[in-house]
């Protein structure tokens, strides 16, 4: 239930942002994180960014999902 996925911030509008990963984009809340910037990789849980990742860290986490090594 605490499942979360890394996505990249591609647009910011106030306390909401559009995030994208693997061609899927969605609108999420960013008020739970300090200083979210364009191109940041963030961890998304239930429609909100809850943690910031570095690009390298995000790719590493993402690979786990893409290679099917992790149950979504």
């Amino acid at each position, binding site marked *: *239930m*605490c499942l*979360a996925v890394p996505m990249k911030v591609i647009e910011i509008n106030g306390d909401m942002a559009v995030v994208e990963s693997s061609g899927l984009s969605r609108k999420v*809340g960013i008020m739970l994180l300090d200083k979210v910037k364009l191109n940041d990789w963030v961890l998304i*849980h*239930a*429609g909100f960014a*809850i*943690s910031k*990742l570095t690009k390298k860290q995000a790719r590493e986490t993402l690979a786990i999902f893409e290679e099917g090594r992790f149950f979504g």
Partner: protein
Amino acid sequence: MAEATTLSRLAERLKNFPVSGNVKIMEVCGTHTVAIRRFGLQHLLPAGVRLVSGPGCPVCVTPDSYIDEAVALARQGVVITSFGDMLRVPGSSSSLEKERAAGADIRAVYSPLDALKIAADCGRETVFLAVGFETTAPVIAAVAMKTLEKKIANFSLLTALRLVPPALQALIADGCAAASPCGTALGSAAASPRGIASDIRLSGFLLPGHVSAIIGKQAYDFLPEQRLPGVISGFSAADIITSLLLLLEMHNKGIYRIMNNYPRVVRDSGNEKSRAILAEVFEPADAEWRGLGMIPASGLQLKPAFAALDSRSHFAIKTASTSPRTDCRCGDVLRGLIDPPACPLFNKACRPDQPLGPCMVSAEGSCSAWVTYG
């Protein structure tokens, strides 16, 4: 390929790790439960080491009485919105899925933001079932703030949010984790079977990654004080294997420390902003856990400034008093007292396609993970 080699090297290291004495490690995150069984990591454990699941699945620890409240609201004609996992959980007489089949307006959502939008669009009384741990609670707090900001008066929260550290403290105080046999301080006497005392001491905790992303490492400082190590872990096979290796190493050396083995996501200090928003909306309250009973300050209730969003004050919710399901041993599974196959209903009367208990309903429940992945 290089990664596979690294992984098989790690697997070999775990298999052959020399462990002194018997070791029992508890994981307290449903996503870990599933990952462990999906990767088959239980087959890589060295002799003397056992993994057990604790109260790590929010759906599983939610008591029957909460489902009964949601069912009662659905029957009043309120729109019920919820994370999908909750719909099949049986209450004492019905489930939300059954109520939906009978015509109630019950909708699964991905985010409480979607629930708020439903309320704004449909104009009818809409309730969101606010279930989850510290990962989810700030999200719900943020939506509570948005609800007041947008002055949406027909949206409320039926809360059953739970906090992980108080549950671990309760397990320890109950004797399940310390050097004494498990007592009956928590739950009913019937839920605390005798004759397994020597087998129930815990040696350490595999700590939840995304809960820890919010609460940080210091939230577990009480574990080392009780001579228990803990490792915050991610969810890949390599993450979990390395976390187990760290725990076993600490066990062998008599080191009691909290380690962060998921630094790519978890800051040691957690997410302070999320905690601040959470503290603005919610305050700790005593709460009931399936299998663990009432635990002090282990739940969250809306603060007075947000009381207007509390479904329990919005509506008169009448439920019949519940009688516990006698054969279902989900409560014992959640305390790490038994493995799922020890339940007489396991994979017989209670199966993933026809679940009787919450540990089988949730895809992240231990019973479901045992059936699905063996």
